[in-house]
């Protein structure tokens, strides 16, 4: 009797799990995303389907930490996959492996070039591999130098414009009783750790690599070298508090015990979040200190797979989808910006009234627009993630004085050169 019940349950569940195929007259695109705000993604998809009868879109999502591995498994396993979220650091490897297709191969002539004109330089670089544009921005952001307005005003300190002024301001605050005026995301496991360092070096006008991808940062006159010396000096003077994640920097800055930090701009939205933070409204971004005030930007993008591009009908539908999500009039990018506070790579949105109104609650939108316009992309190659994993621990050692800046920069440059040669000979 019990066995019969078990059999019945098993049969019931098996029946319920049968997949219902889509109607054969529809073309169904497979869209793979990481699981950020799926309800909004699904609603955007619904709007696309309504505007494009005959095209259905099936959304599959993976958790962010598993995304890249799961996606590679899908593509290597020939699981139907047409459009995916791409990342600037993955794009070169995906392009080299032939997983993804240049957008020009699916878009009407001139369409990609026209849209590219509206994209911030750093974001366009991030979606470009081997001279070809592979994606349109879904989400872009920059690294910002963030300070507490009230603390600086109360202490009568002007907003620093150079790293030397940051040191002077921090020393003044320390003399006034603030133990560690700078809080720094010190976590060698995170790519952010390297990105924040690059952003600071960019502020000094540094180039870390030349046009042939040879490392330049081991030169003591290079801005990156000088910036690492600056960080080591700030640590030695006990001006810096280490924190291992931006999420806890948010709460630490909201204690009023720190005045400066260098983090992704989206953290500014969280710092000024009236729903959660006691000091919301006190935080602002300033141009990255240094001669040029440039910073690092990144772009996540909508990318079409090579498999989709190889099928004319899917290629056409995939382009329609990418254009709907990231093309003019930038309605979807604007929606993400207004409703969720996500950054964007489409520069005209910085002049959009709704965006200005929504973002003006936590940031100076003009300053943000200016920062985006001068931000620069990182250098990403097939081997850059391998190198970054090697270099980050060295950076961490130099910052806290466990290794010399000179040795760390030399080791980092040597490893880069070795990897470059290895990958060139593959």
């Amino acid at each position, binding site marked *: 009797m019990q066995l019969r019940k078990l059999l019945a349950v098993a049969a019931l569940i098996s029946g*319920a*799990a049968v997949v219902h195929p889509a109607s054969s007259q529809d073309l169904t695109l497979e869209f793979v995303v990481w*699981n950020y705000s799926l309800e*909004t993604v699904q609603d955007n998809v619904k709007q696309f389907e309504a505007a494009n009868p005959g095209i259905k879109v099936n959304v599959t999502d993976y*958790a962010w930490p598993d995304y890249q591995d799961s996606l590679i498994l899908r593509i290597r396993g020939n699981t139907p996959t047409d459009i995916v979220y791409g990342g600037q650091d993955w794009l070169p490897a995906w392009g080299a492996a032939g997983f993804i297709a240049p957008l020009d191969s699916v878009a009407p002539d001139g369409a990609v070039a026209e849209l590219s004109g509206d994209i911030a330089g750093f974001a366009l670089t991030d979606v470009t591999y081997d001279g070809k544009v592979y994606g349109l921005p879904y989400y872009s952001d920059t690294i910002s130098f963030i300070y507490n307005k009230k603390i600086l005003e109360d202490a009568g300190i002007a907003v620093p414009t150079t790293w030397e002024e940051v040191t002077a301001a921090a020393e003044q605050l320390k003399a006034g009783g603030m133990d560690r005026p700078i809080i720094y995301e010190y976590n060698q496991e995170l790519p952010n750790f390297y990105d924040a360092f690059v952003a600071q070096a960019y502020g000094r006008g540094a180039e870390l690599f030349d046009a042939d991808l040879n490392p330049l940062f081991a030169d003591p006159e290079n801005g990156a070298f000088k910036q690492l010396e600056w960080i080591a000096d700030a640590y030695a003077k006990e001006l810096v508090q280490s924190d291992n994640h931006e999420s806890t920097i948010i709460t630490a800055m909201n204690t009023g015990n720190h005045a400066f930090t260098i983090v992704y701009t989206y953290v500014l939205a*969280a710092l000024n979040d009236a*729903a*959660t933070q*006691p000091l919301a409204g006190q935080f602002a971004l300033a141009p990255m200190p240094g001669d040029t005030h440039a910073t690092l930007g990144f772009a996540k993008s909508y990318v079409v797979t090579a498999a989709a591009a190889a099928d004319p009908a899917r290629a056409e539908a995939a382009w329609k989808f990418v254009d709907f999500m990231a093309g003019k009039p930038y309605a979807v990018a604007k929606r993400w910006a207004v409703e969720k506070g996500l950054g964007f790579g489409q520069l005209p949105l910085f002049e959009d009234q709704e965006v200005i109104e929504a973002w003006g609650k936590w940031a100076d939108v003009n300053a943000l627009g200016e920062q985006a316009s001068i931000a620069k992309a990182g250098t990403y190659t097939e081997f850059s993630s391998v190198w970054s994993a090697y270099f980050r621990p060295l950076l961490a050692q130099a910052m806290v004085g466990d290794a010399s800046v000179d040795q760390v920069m030399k080791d980092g440059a040597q490893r880069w050169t070795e990897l470059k040669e290895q990958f060139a000979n593959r």
Partner: protein
Amino acid sequence: MRRRLHPAASFVFAALILLFTGGPVLLSLYGSLVPDRILFSRDRSILTEGPNFETYRYIFTGQLPDSYQQESANRAMISDAARQVPQSLVNSSLNALAAMALNLILGAPAAFVFARYIFPGKKLSFMYLILSPLVPAVALVTPIYMMLQWFGLLGTQLGIILVHTAKALPFTVLILSVFFRKIPAEIFEAAVLDHCSRFQTFFRIALPLALPSVGATGLFAFMISYSEYMFAMVLSGNAQTRPVSVVMAALARNTDVSWSLLNAGIFIAIVPTLVLVVLVWRFVVEGLLGGAVKG
């Protein structure tokens, strides 16, 4: 002479165990009952503000917590992955029930045959079955993914159920075969004298005698399926079929969401599991141990 642990030492050990097992659960509960602003505040707490159930309301209805409705609120912190928790609990329960049922349907007869009959290749097949769990699961992800894709089962609950069944089956066969071996041979000889077929011997004699152990083994299979993560992560694919282990991992590893929401999601996800463990674990242990010392 056996030396007994000093009562104070026992208490300290018990307190430590409670701290590390119950502590996170209580912290999740606390974190879920206060808005982020209170959670991060040193001056305010649940005692001064009272409990708040807005994050639970969001998870079950989608209505934003009040604090996120105000001006300057950062709604990027509201992750709708938390809203997948209730559905994922249903998915996991269905997966685990089905895996349990299939395990018993396939595993009990197999264990009986291995325990009571001699056939060519018995030793080899039994060793293969028993040693197969030693293969690291991660090494099997890709071939199993390809196989399920071949059968069109990717992204379906049926695919996950089959994999979970295969994962638990060696344990089911091993444990039940031990029980069946311990049943006195005279009982089966009497059944043969009464003209019982092998099938009847299994259904009418062996199965009723081993029922407590069968139940315990089934619950064990249920738990293996309910908590399995790696295959579920790779093979599920969307929110409709995703089990709770995957949703929990997505939530717990996302540091950019509202902490209050994160805690509410975690608490909702772990409470049914805790209740289940408290209710049935005793029977699992009793069933397994009882069988092991019989005979």
